[in-house]
């Protein structure tokens, strides 16, 4: 009975969001999670541990009015880590005012923007700085201050960005795992721009759907989100160097039958010699696999970086193969497995992510990443002892 009443109340509350009346509607949502990372192998440094417990919380408050045409969103994030003081961090993921008009949308404040289509890495995605202490995959981002005007027209959508205030990349601390052999010294960070973190960056992206094709063309000018890491004079630490770059990006997806064909390409100027990097491949989905209701997706991608061995990324000539499994059950059980293998050296990066809902508010997730066969010149070499297993239980509200 109580649950029915709750349902009714929720439906009533939600219906307000589409109501034509002028009254606003606020909603608090979010999640809190406990995470346990286990590293089977002893680290290079005695300061580093083999087991890390941490808790994270990300509430989100949203207030909508004018029939949802205007909204305000606030989403802070905090993590407390047992050992790594750098992983213990706070960030404002979102603090945005949105106004949607006829054929345009204006967003003011701090938020996250995603561009791109591929699965193995996100080349084109450049607006936000990666929150690398959160996760190695670069899908967690720091909130970026911006003014974003989107023009939605017959000829496509044009997104214009002004990006004041640069966010430095976050790296694990000296007690943390998944870090470089030499500790990072963010205090000595070097900027090409004389204004340092105060450089005003800008970006634009045009995107359009042509039938089965989704295409995006973008350009960014400003401080590179990805630094070059150079040792300091004493050779005791690594210092991030943030160059001013121009980067042009192309992302395209062809959705044909059960196939998704994906391509991302960038050309970056200003970080050493200009270079091209490309990621492309496909995802093929089999529904109702083997008579069950499960979906199985097969993913294959090729990752190329023109800089070769001088690339700041380990993926300059690599193949990725992956499999996505969605059981389509009431608990939304799903798993994604992938491996990226260097075509020359055979160095490989293994990935497993799986999750399952428990009841209606809880979710259990498992994540494992493994590193094998990296040579000393490979950026993955520093992580060779850092293969890990992560268990997380999260509650959503």
């Amino acid at each position: 009975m109580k649950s029915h009443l709750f349902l009714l109340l929720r439906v009533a509350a939600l219906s307000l969001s589409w109501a034509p009346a002028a009254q606003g509607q606020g909603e608090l949502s979010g999640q809190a999670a406990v995470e346990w990372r286990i590293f089977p192998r002893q680290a290079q440094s005695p300061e580093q541990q083999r087991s890390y417990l941490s808790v994270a919380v990300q509430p989100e408050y949203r207030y909508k009015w004018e029939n949802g045409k205007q909204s305000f969103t606030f989403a802070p994030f905090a993590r407390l880590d047992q050992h790594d003081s750098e992983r213990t961090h706070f960030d404002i993921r979102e603090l945005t005012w949105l106004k949607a008009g006829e054929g345009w949308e204006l967003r003011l404040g701090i938020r996250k923007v995603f561009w791109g289509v591929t699965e193995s890495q996100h080349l084109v995605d450049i607006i936000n700085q990666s929150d690398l202490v959160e996760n190695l995959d670069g899908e967690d981002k720091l909130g970026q201050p911006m003014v974003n005007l989107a023009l939605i027209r017959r000829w496509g959508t044009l997104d214009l960005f002004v990006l004041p205030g640069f966010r430095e990349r976050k790296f694990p601390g000296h007690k943390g795992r998944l870090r470089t052999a030499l500790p990072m010294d963010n205090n000595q960070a070097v900027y090409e721009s004389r204004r340092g973190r105060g450089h005003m960056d800008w970006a634009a992206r045009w995107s359009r759907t042509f039938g089965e094709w989704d295409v995006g063309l973008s350009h960014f000018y400003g401080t590179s989100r990805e630094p070059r890491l150079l040792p300091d004079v004493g050779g005791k630490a690594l210092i991030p160097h943030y160059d001013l770059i121009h980067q042009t990006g192309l992302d395209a997806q062809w959705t044909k039958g059960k196939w998704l064909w994906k391509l991302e390409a960038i050309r970056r100027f200003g970080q050493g010699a200009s270079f091209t990097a490309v990621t492309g491949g496909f995802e093929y989905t089999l529904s109702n696999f083997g008579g069950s209701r499960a979906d199985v997706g097969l993913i294959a991608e090729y990752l190329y970086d023109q800089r070769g061995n001088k690339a700041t990324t380990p993926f300059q000539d690599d193949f990725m193969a992956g499999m996505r499994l969605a059981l389509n059950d009431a608990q939304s059980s799903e798993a994604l497995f992938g491996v990226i293998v260097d075509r020359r050296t055979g160095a490989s990066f293994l990935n497993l992510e799986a999750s399952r809902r428990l009841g209606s508010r809880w979710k259990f997730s498992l994540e494992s990443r493994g590193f094998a066969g990296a040579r000393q010149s490979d950026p993955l070499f520093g992580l060779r002892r850092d293969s890990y297993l992560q268990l997380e239980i999260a509650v959503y509200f």
Partner: protein
Amino acid sequence: MKKTLLLLTLCLWPLSASAQSPEEKGLAIAVEADRRDAGFKDNLADMVMILKNKHGEESTRLLRVAILEVNGDGDKSLSVFDEPRDVNGTALLSFSHKSGTDDQWLYLPALKRVKRIASADKSGAFMGSEFAYEDISSQEVEKYTYKYLRDEIHDGHNSFVIERYPVDKYSGYKRQVVWIDKAEYRTLKIDYYDRKDSLLKTFTARGYREYLSSHWRPAEMMMVNHQTGKSTLLKWSNYRFRTGLKETDFTQESLKRAQ
């Protein structure tokens, strides 16, 4: 006068049973059902989705659905999940087409990522329910070929029983048997037969109400899977029509702010 009579006869001709093949009559019924619901322009509603497994265990989802009628093509729709809470804000934008595959984009709020998905896979389960994507997408006349079977009293309603065959090769069904009431052309029941022609699922709709004096919408839709014993109940509420939604409310941009 004679001319008017002739016109009238011509107009009514598709509905008269005589001199029509079962295929023609089946198509005429589908066309008439479509014609009667045309002109709703747009439509908002809230949905509670209750999944039940064969042991009777339930889990619930809450969605908001917006539909835009598109002249000359299939409808556009935007569905937003409010519960379960871990998928809060996940939204699906769907452009259905009279022929060919539909276009679908999924918004994942945690990544802020809009993903075009392979909608050819229309036989896949919609969010773990017994409804496949093709069951919930806009039912355009052109998506099937038809055959009239018989008249039957169903649940007290004088009804047509027609059979329809999906045109799309990716459909999960060989055929569907549909009960449509003669008075208002409402879909009362559908039997779904899988590719091996065995009875897979039965859909029933209840609690129809008329909106804007011509558009009938049910309060409940039930889908029972005979092969697994699972079922999904959709409870609809808060139907609103002609709310002034536009094409710009059904874009990848609007998908990102649907939460």
